[in-house]
C-alpha cells in the first residue's frame, strides 16, 4: 500500500489539466455563495428544532431534492462512473433496484411513523420503540459511520483535485472541511439543505454535458452498445439482468439473488429507510403529506442520475483514447499507482477534459466539488444531530436548556469535521474506496433495517429483542468481513458460490447480517415480555391510527405518484434488460 507521500508523488507526475482564469472565477463564485448562505440563514437558526431539523418548514420539493442530493456525493459521481467502466451497466442497479423501491417504501409505509412519533432522529425512534439499549448501539454505530463517510468524501475530493489539477491533497482537504464546517455550523440542517438543493442543480449543470456530447460523438445509444461490444468482445456490459443468471456470466461476478435480495432489499431498504443522513432531510418536511411526497420526488430524480454517472462510464469504454489513437485501458488504483496508467476512478475527470474547454471545465470541476461537499455536509449535519440528541443529550447532559444543545450542535460540527479530516488521511491507505464504503454499509445499515422494520411492523417485538438483534446482526457482519479479510477463500461460504467476486460478498454479507438480526430479534422477543399495546401508539403499524395526510385529489395523493414512479422503474428495467 503506498504511503500518502508516495501516492502524492505518484499522482503529481500525471496531472490531467489546469484551470484557466475563467474556471477559477466559476469555482470561486460557488464558494462565495455557499458561505454567504451559511451566514444568511444563521439568524433563522436559533432553536434546536431550527438547527437540527430546519424548523420542520421544508416543502416536499425542497426536502425531496435535498434527500436525493445528500446521497449524491463523491462516491456517486466518481465511484459509480468508474464502476460503470469496470462492470458495465450493472452499476445502474445501485440507482434503480438499489434505491427506487426503498425510497417509495419509505415515503408510503415508514414515513408516517417517523413523522407522527415526532422523533428527532432514527436512533431516537429506536429509543421510543425499543428503549435505551437499541438507541445506544444505533447512535454509536451511526456516529462512527458518518464520520468515516465524511472522511471518504473529503479524501475523494482531494484526490480528484490532485489528479485533475495537481492541487496539494492537504490543501483540498482543509479548504473543503473549513467551508463545510462554517456553513453547517452557522445554519445547521437548514444551511445544509439549501446547499444540497443548489448542489443538485450544479451537478446537473456541470455533468450533463458529458453524456450529451458523448452520445452525439458515438452516434447514439445503439451505436454505443455496438462499439462497446466490439471493444470488450461481448455484449455483457450493456444488459441489466440478462447476464445475472450465474456469477461467471457477468463482469461483476454477482448473481441475481444477490442483486434482488442483498442490494434491492437489504442494503437499499437499510440505507434509504434507516440511514439518518437521508431520513433527516425528510423529517424537515412541513407536514405529513410533504414528508411522504419528499422521498417519492427524490426517487424521480434518482432514476435520472445514471445519465450523468453511468453513461459517462460506458462512453469511456469507447471514446477514451491514448495520444497514439489506441483505445485507453483504465486500471485499478494499485496498478495505476505502479504503472502510471489512469485508474477507474478517473473516468469522470477524463471525460470532462475530453469535452470541456475553459469555462465548462470550471463548471464541471465545481460540480464535482459541490457533490463532494454535499456528501460531507450531509454526514456532518447528521452526525451533529445524533451526537447532540442521542449521545450527549441522552447519556451526558440531560435536561439542559435548548440553547445549550444548539451550541453543542455547532461545536460538534467543528469536532466532527476535524475527526473527518483525520479519517480522510486514513482513507488514503484504503485500496478501493468503493469496497470500503460497501463494507461500512453492511456493518451497520443492514441489521439496523431489520430492527427498525420489525419495530414498525411487528407489535410483538420487544426492547430486549431489538437490542440483541441489532447487536448480533452488527457483530455478525463485522465478523464475516474479518473472516474474508483474513481468508479470502471464505467468500465461497458467504456468497454460496466459489465464482463470487468481492462485490457479491458485500451483497450477501448484508443479507446474512439482516437475517441474523431478524432471527435473534424474533427469538429474544418471543422469550421476553411484550410492551402493552397502548405504549406502542404512534410507533407501530396496527397500534396506530394513521392520520390523514390532507390529500384531496388523486394528484395530491403520494400513493398515486409512488405508483407512477414504480411503473417508470419497471419500464426502464425492461428497456435495458
Amino acid at each position, binding site marked *: 500500500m503506498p504511503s500518502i507521500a508516495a501516492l502524492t508523488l505518484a499522482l503529481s507526475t500525471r496531472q490531467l489539466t489546469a484551470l484557466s482564469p*475563467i474556471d477559477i*472565477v*466559476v469555482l470561486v*463564485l*460557488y464558494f462565495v*455563495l455557499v458561505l454567504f*448562505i451559511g451566514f*444568511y*440563514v444563521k*439568524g*433563522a*437558526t436559533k432553536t434546536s428544532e*431550527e438547527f437540527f431539523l*430546519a*424548523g420542520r*418548514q*421544508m*416543502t416536499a420539493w*425542497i426536502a425531496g431534492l435535498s434527500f436525493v442530493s445528500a446521497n449524491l456525493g463523491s462516491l456517486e459521481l466518481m465511484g459509480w462512473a468508474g464502476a460503470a467502466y469496470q462492470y458495465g451497466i450493472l452499476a445502474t442497479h445501485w440507482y434503480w433496484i438499489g434505491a427506487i423501491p426503498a425510497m417509495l417504501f419509505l415515503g408510503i409505509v415508514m414515513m408516517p411513523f417517523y413523522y407522527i412519533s415526532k422523533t428527532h432522529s432514527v436512533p431516537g425512534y429506536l429509543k421510543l420503540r425499543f428503549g435505551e439499549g437499541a438507541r445506544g448501539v444505533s447512535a454509536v454505530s451511526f456516529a462512527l459511520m458518518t464520520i468515516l463517510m465524511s472522511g471518504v468524501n473529503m479524501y475523494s475530493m482531494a484526490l480528484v483535485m490532485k489528479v485533475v489539477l495537481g492541487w496539494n491533497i492537504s490543501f483540498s482537504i482543509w479548504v473543503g472541511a473549513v467551508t463545510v464546517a462554517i456553513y453547517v455550523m452557522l445554519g445547521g440542517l*437548514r444551511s445544509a*439543505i*439549501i446547499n444540497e*438543493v*443548489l448542489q443538485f*442543480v*450544479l451537478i446537473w*449543470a456541470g455533468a450533463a*454535458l458529458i453524456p450529451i*456530447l458523448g452520445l*452525439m*460523438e458515438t452516434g447514439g445509444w445503439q451505436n454505443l452498445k455496438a462499439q462497446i461490444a466490439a471493444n470488450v468482445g461481448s455484449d455483457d456490459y450493456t444488459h441489466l439482468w440478462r447476464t445475472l443468471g450465474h456469477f461467471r456470466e457477468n463482469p461483476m461476478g454477482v448473481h441475481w439473488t444477490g442483486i434482488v435480495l442483498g442490494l434491492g432489499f437489504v442494503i437499499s431498504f437499510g440505507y434509504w429507510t434507516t440511514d439518518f443522513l437521508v431520513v433527516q432531510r425528510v423529517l424537515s418536511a412541513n407536514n405529513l403529506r410533504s414528508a411522504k411526497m419528499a422521498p417519492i420526488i427524490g426517487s424521480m430524480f434518482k432514476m435520472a442520475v445514471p445519465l450523468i454517472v453511468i453513461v459517462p462510464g460506458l462512453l469511456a469504454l469507447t*471514446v477514451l483514447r491514448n495520444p497514439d489513437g489506441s483505445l485507453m485501458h483504465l486500471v485499478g488504483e494499485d496498478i495505476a499507482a505502479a504503472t502510471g496508467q489512469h485508474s477507474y476512478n478517473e473516468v469522470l475527470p477524463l471525460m470532462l*477534459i*475530453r*469535452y*470541456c*474547454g*475553459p*469555462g*465548462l471545465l470550471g*463548471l464541471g470541476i465545481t460540480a464535482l466539488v459541490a457533490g463532494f461537499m454535499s456528501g460531507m455536509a450531509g454526514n456532518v449535519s447528521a452526525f451533529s444531530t445524533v451526537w447532540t440528541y442521542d449521545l450527549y443529550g441522552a447519556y451526558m447532559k440531560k435536561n439542559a436548556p435548548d440553547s445549550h444543545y444548539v451550541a453543542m450542535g455547532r461545536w460538534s460540527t467543528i469536532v466532527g469535521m476535524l475527526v473527518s479530516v483525520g479519517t480522510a488521511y486514513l482513507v488514503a491507505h484504503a485500496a478501493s474506496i468503493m469496497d470500503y464504503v460497501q463494507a461500512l454499509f453492511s456493518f451497520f445499515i443492514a441489521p439496523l433495517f431489520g430492527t427498525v422494520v420489525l419495530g414498525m411492523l411487528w407489535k410483538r417485538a420487544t426492547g430486549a429483542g431489538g437490542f440483541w438483534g441489532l447487536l448480533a446482526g452488527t457483530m455478525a457482519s463485522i465478523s464475516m468481513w474479518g473472516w474474508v479479510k483474513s481468508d479470502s477463500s471464505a467468500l465461497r461460504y458467504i456468497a454460496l458460490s466459489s465464482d463470487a467476486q468481492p462485490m457479491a460478498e458485500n451483497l450477501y454479507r448484508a443479507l446474512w447480517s439482516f437475517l441474523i438480526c431478524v432471527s435473534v430479534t424474533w427469538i429474544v422477543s418471543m422469550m421476553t415480555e411484550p410492551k402493552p399495546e397502548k405504549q406502542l401508539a404512534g410507533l407501530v403499524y396496527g397500534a396506530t391510527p394513521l392520520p390523514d395526510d390532507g390529500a384531496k385529489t388523486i394528484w395530491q395523493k403520494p400513493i398515486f405518484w409512488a405508483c407512477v414512479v414504480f411503473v417508470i422503474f419497471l419500464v426502464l428495467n425492461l428497456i435495458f434488460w
Partner: protein
Amino acid sequence: MAEGTGRGERFSIWFFVGILPLLYGLILVPYGIYEAMGHEAPTALHHLHPTLWWGLLLLLFGTFYVVRFRPGKD
C-alpha cells in the same frame, strides 16, 4: 416567509438556485462567443460550440428562477 430559508428572511431557496446558473451563464455566453470567433480549445466536438450553447441554457434557467423568486415578489 421566503420558502426554505426560515423566518423573517427575504431570499427564497429557489432564488439561490437561480442566481448561480445566471452568473455562470453571464460568464459562459461571452466566452463562448469569443471561442466561436476562432479561439476554440482543442476539445472533442468543439466545433459544436458547447460553451456558448450551454452558457445560454444556464442563462435562461437562472433568469427564470431569479425573476420568478426575486425578493419582495410575494
